[in-house]
């Protein structure tokens, strides 16, 4: 089997111009380097190069230290699986198993049980309970019980039911704190478990293999980078030559990510430092406080926010994927030339690949194969809508579930209004784009075939950022719409 380069997979319509000069040389295609990396000397050089990258990244406040663990896993031979598990556990332990400790502390005080609770004990017990539960569920998968045949749906319903239970009066005090501790320990792994259960239903593997890639040591957000075990198996280097090529691809990506991280720092310094352009959020707050800045400043801050966000996403995903590749997993990049997208659906694919995959795997396909099978266009649109709107909204609601504990269910749901509008517009637009788009022949010319569609797609995503910016729990849909109208010149 061969895994082609990503540039091939994401080739857009229209003539592709391949530059003869490259900033980052294609070291993975040099046979001498590939051969050299298969002996001890080459591996020592690689370790030194990775160490150098870790230092350079550290200089700009980016943690690339997991790359050392990646190299250890890559060369661990038959102990590879065990080492991946230990590396993952080590980094999870270092980050307190991703439990929002501040939230639990605030809740304990609010419930009046802060004096009776031992936070250290709770934080030690809960990960054990949650991981034992995961292991049990993974072992039971494939037994034919209904909940295991629809794992994602069952998982979401169970999680949301427990969240609803936290609101019951009878749960006041210690029970509520314990239940929230369980939920906050469970939540970072929810989508990993969804992939794990889906995988376990297809192929039997020991539960600890699945658990070893729940928030794997190479990094992740709530979105699993590398999905689950079966997906990773397909990308795992099986021969010394494949491992060498994969690691060289990792080095190449690390170098490119470093360049982009520096570009981002320079851009932020130029835009917000030298040119004194306010951040998008500050601009919005100024407008809402009745002190609107010049309209062109609003546009400039929106565009700079869009560009900075894209660079941040590329750097964030680049570090993770480079580390995974150094460990021997030839994963696709998370962000790949999003500005070259000619359709809305393609932008999503290129901007945050693993998140798009999560929505497609857990919402789009299950809906597509079940609903409106006799209506081709409606079927496509509905499945896209369920993924891009319902799935997207649910994902973010669960990601920010602490708002339910802090604000109550009603206010947390109402606080989603701006994001709900964002996902609705996105889903309808992507749905229509999916229905319209068919592979186009490369004969439309560069202007009509490439530049204009790329500009339209980028402008669309830049504009709807107004409804998807970080302050979305604090400001209403109406306030954001008002700001957009101001930018568009509809209001003053």
């Amino acid at each position: 089997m061969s895994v082609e380069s990503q540039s091939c997979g994401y080739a857009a319509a229209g003539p592709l111009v391949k530059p003869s000069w490259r900033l980052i040389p294609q070291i993975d295609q040099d046979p001498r380097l590939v051969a050299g990396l298969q002996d001890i000397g080459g591996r020592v050089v690689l370790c030194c190069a990775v160490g150098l990258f870790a230092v350079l990244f550290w200089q700009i406040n980016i943690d690339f230290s997991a790359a050392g663990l990646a190299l250890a896993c890559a060369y661990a031979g038959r102990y590879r699986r065990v080492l991946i598990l230990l590396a993952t556990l080590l980094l999870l332990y270092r980050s307190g198993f991703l439990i929002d400790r501040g939230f639990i502390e605030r809740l304990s005080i609010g419930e009046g049980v802060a004096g009776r609770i031992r936070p250290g004990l709770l934080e030690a017990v809960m990960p054990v309970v949650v991981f034992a539960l995961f292991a049990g569920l993974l072992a039971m998968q494939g037994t034919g019980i209904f909940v295991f045949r629809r794992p994602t749906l069952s998982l979401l319903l169970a999680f949301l039911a427990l969240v609803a239970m936290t609101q019951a009066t009878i749960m006041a005090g210690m029970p509520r704190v314990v239940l929230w501790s369980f939920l906050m320990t469970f939540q970072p792994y929810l989508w990993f478990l969804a992939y794990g259960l889906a995988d376990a239903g297809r192929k039997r593997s020991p539960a600890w293999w699945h658990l070893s890639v729940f928030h794997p040591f190479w990094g992740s957000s709530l979105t699993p980078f590398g999905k689950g075990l079966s997906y990773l198996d397909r990308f795992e280097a099986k021969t010394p030559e494949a491992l060498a090529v994969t690691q060289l691809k990792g080095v190449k990506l690390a170098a490119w990510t470093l360049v982009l991280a520096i570009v981002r720092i320079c851009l932020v310094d130029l835009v917000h430092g030298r040119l004194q352009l306010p951040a998008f959020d500050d601009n919005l707050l100024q407008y809402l406080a009745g002190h609107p800045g010049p309209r062109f400043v609003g546009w400039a801050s929106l565009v700079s926010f869009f560009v900075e966000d894209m660079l941040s996403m590329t750097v964030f995903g680049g570090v993770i994927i480079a580390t995974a590749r150094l460990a021997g997993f030839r994963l696709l990049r998370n962000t790949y030339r999003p500005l070259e997208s000619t359709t809305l659906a393609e932008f999503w694919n290129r901007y945050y690949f693993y998140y798009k995959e999560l929505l497609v795997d857990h919402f789009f396909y299950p809906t597509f194969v079940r609903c409106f099978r006799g209506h081709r266009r409606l079927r496509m649109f509905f499945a896209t809508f369920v993924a891009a709107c319902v799935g997207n909204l649910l994902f973010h609601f669960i990601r920010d579930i602490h708002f339910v504990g802090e604000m109550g269910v009603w206010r947390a749901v109402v606080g989603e209004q701006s994001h709900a509008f964002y996902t609705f517009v996105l889903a309808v637009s992507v749905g229509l784009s999916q229905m319209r788009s068919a592979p186009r022949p490369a004969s439309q010319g560069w202007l009509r075939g490439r530049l204009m569609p790329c500009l339209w797609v980028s402008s669309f995503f830049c504009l709807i950022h107004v409804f998807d910016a970080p302050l979305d729990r604090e400001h209403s849909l109406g306030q954001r719409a008002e700001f957009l109208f101001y930018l568009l010149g509809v209001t003053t």
Partner: protein
Amino acid sequence: MTTTAAPEVRSQMRRYIAQRLLMKGDSAPLGDDDLLFTSGRLDSLDAVELIMSIETDHGINFSDIGFDLTRLDSISAIAALVGQPSAEPA
């Protein structure tokens, strides 16, 4: 449902997929075991077209057999899916 011999399914699928790849500007060689979706050469839109094509041509209901994209991830996998008895409707 049409019963199609495995070699014929393979060549039919190879033609269909090669055409879709070509329309996306991908003219790289296509082997029967090459990964289509997990490699990024085809995307979810292509998967949708492929699902509908298999449903129409081979009468397979993916909701009955449990949808799994890995079963469409190569020409060989598709040929195996279309050929296996459990994929055929009752």
